[in-house]
């Protein structure tokens, strides 16, 4: 069975994603809550993708570490409505740094 996509962002961004057909969207204000949701998704069986707004990802301590440690869910940080730059590159940079031993510009 195909896996589910989940959005974790502010209320307005969640509304837009829901309208676009991404059924599950969690509007959170607290980064700790976002971490708990991602950890729960990892324990679930049919979640594949967690789209986390950059604002929440940057306020979560060790978002890159969490992203690297997850096996089932792939979290992707995306710029939210207020236009923060994407952090998807940071996670990729961190994975490469750990594997190869040096930083690579993405």
């Amino acid at each position, binding site marked *: 069975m*195909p896996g589910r996509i989940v959005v974790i962002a502010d209320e307005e961004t969640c509304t837009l994603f829901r*309208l676009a*057909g991404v059924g599950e969207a969690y509007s959170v204000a607290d980064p700790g809550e976002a971490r708990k949701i991602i950890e729960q998704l990892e324990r679930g069986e049919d979640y*594949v993708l967690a789209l986390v707004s950059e604002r929440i990802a940057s306020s979560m301590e060790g978002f890159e570490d969490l992203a690297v440690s997850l096996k089932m869910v*792939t979290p*992707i940080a*995306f710029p939210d409505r207020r236009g923060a730059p994407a952090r998807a590159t940071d996670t990729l940079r961190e*994975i490469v740094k750990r*594997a190869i031993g040096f930083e690579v510009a*993405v």
Partner: protein
Amino acid sequence: MSVNVTRMELLRLKRLLGIAERAKSLLEEKRTILAMEILSTISKARGLIDEMEVKLRRAYQSFSLAEATMGRSGLLGLAVKTPTMFRVEIDRRKIMGVETPVFNLVEVAEKERGAPYSLIGTTTYLDEAVSMMGEAVKVMVKVAEIEATVKALAAELEKIKRRVNALEHIVIPRLRRDIAFIEFRLEEMEREHLFRIERIVGEKQS
């Protein structure tokens, strides 16, 4: 040191050393190729991330206009009723023997999920925002695929690094030490044997 000092054991250890050295060089080669594969996969990410940002920006702009014309509560009401339209299917492919995921965004058939929001009472700004967001989600799925692929390749690279280190710092030095020890003991035994023979010959002659 608990090593059998025999010629058979010496031959066995020399054969093992040959295998260990060949394995190390093959693993080093695989390590280099995997590192290059990671870098080449990463190079595809930049373009996709830029594309995702552009599509999201357009979706947010249209959404702001839709919000201005329809009101926030109107949009919230529609959002609650909108059915789930996207799922991600996972296929697998192998890169250098490493299983990596391929994410495919699939749209749930309309008869299964029901129609999205009604066209009555909604604006084209909302249609634009929704359509652009759908495009952005497609790109996000591709970015996620790259991240998951890089993660799988990096995990394999870590495993290879540990194996190369174990061969280089533990297995090969231990085999060399055992071989040197057996060679030394065999030479010593040969010298003792020669000395005994010379003594026996000397005793017989005298």
